[in-house]
């Protein structure tokens, strides 16, 4: 993927919490459609990206992304700054919706296929510089996990599997999977330097 020629090159677009997403959500909660347009600019990429990553099918991913973005409009007043960052809140809404979609019976057939083939590694992203840098940092930190931690987290988050399903797929016990997920995320959190 080539670097885009446009203005997002360089600093400012990278990863961490955009400074005023919380404020934008506050305006959205008051019915401000212009503010929602800015929220769309910020979040449509990650929302669509995670939906595509989890559900795989572009048409379904688009539906999920639309549902999620409308839900962000509808529930902007539910965001609580004292409970964590605005980006994490919004992307939790997105990820849950994507996971709900693949866990519904309609997607059973796809699940069979996905169960057979391990999820692709980070091979299909990075169309903007910010995304590329984010992607590189996350990949670097994911490399710092043990292979079993990485595998558990990848199957659960990008594959949309429950921890019980992950345990089944990997042929290990539930306790082992739970602690791999938790320990792996703690290590990832510390490596990325994120704070609630």
């Amino acid at each position, binding site marked *: 993927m080539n670097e885009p020629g446009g203005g997002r090159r360089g600093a400012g677009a990278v*990863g961490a919490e955009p400074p005023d997403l919380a404020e934008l959500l*506050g305006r959205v*909660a*008051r*019915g401000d*459609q212009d503010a*929602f347009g800015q929220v769309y600019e910020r979040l*449509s*990429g*990650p929302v*669509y*990206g*995670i939906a*595509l990553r989890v559900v795989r099918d572009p048409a379904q991913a*688009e539906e999920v992304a*639309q549902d999620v973005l*409308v839900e962000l*409009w*509808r*529930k*902007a*007043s539910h965001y609580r*700054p*004292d*409970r*964590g960052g605005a980006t*994490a809140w919004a*992307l*939790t809404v997105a*990820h*849950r919706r994507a996971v709900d979609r693949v866990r519904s019976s309609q997607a059973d057939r796809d699940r069979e296929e996905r169960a057979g083939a391990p999820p692709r590694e*980070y091979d299909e*992203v990075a*169309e*903007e510089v910010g*995304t590329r840098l*984010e*992607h590189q*940092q996350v*990949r670097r930190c994911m490399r710092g996990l043990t292979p079993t931690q990485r595998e558990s*987290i990848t199957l*659960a988050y*990008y594959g*949309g599997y*429950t*921890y*019980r399903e992950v345990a089944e797929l990997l042929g290990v016990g539930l*306790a082992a*999977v*739970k*602690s791999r*997920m*938790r320990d792996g*995320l703690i290590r*990832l*959190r510390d490596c*990325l330097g*994120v*704070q*609630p």
Partner: protein
Amino acid sequence: MSHEPHDLAGPYALDALTEPERRRFERHLTGCAACAEEAAGLREATARLALAASRRPPERLRGRVLAEIARTRQSPPPLARRLPSPRTRGPAWLAAAACLVLALTGGGAAWHFHRDAEHARALNRQVAAVLTAPDARTSTVSGQGRVTVVSSRSAGKAVVTASRLPRLPSTRTYQMWWLGPFAPRSAGTLDPGGEARPVVTAGLGDARRFGVTVEPAGGSPRPTGAPILTLPLG
């Protein structure tokens, strides 16, 4: 079934729980501040996994979403059940916090349907900021009604709740004052209006006491009568 719900922090942050498990774990979080904090931190990490997967959506999505939101009614803010953050719990203001929460839920209907939802949210944040200040102090007085003041010198603000104050004619209003070795400074007017909702007032400075007077509607630059009540400030 897990006997150690804490173990589920990882699967929870990854949305790798079933719906009933998730609900159970969230109930656990409401009673465990450390767990809630850990879960929030892990959520920040999983959000980065989503950011790293970012893809530009098809152009048509924007038009569809904007058209749909234009005809979609927004959901009102949920009424906060727990105002104070669990992180800085301290006995000094716990009673006041409980009292304020009661006041809030008592006046909940009015507050909940407040027309300006964002105002309510902003107020909620301001109240929480004072309540969770490490130097928050509480004073309460009962008599003609009940007034509670939680003040924080570091924040320079106080949260005031009043309930059961006698109704005033529309030409009169309750006004709050900062009192000390200086001329009384106005801390704003107080509208008990039936529902007890908290007021956040700034300008605490070096005030020693807090007082309430009855003034002509709109308030006065200085008190025109003796306070109906005063409270010491911590």
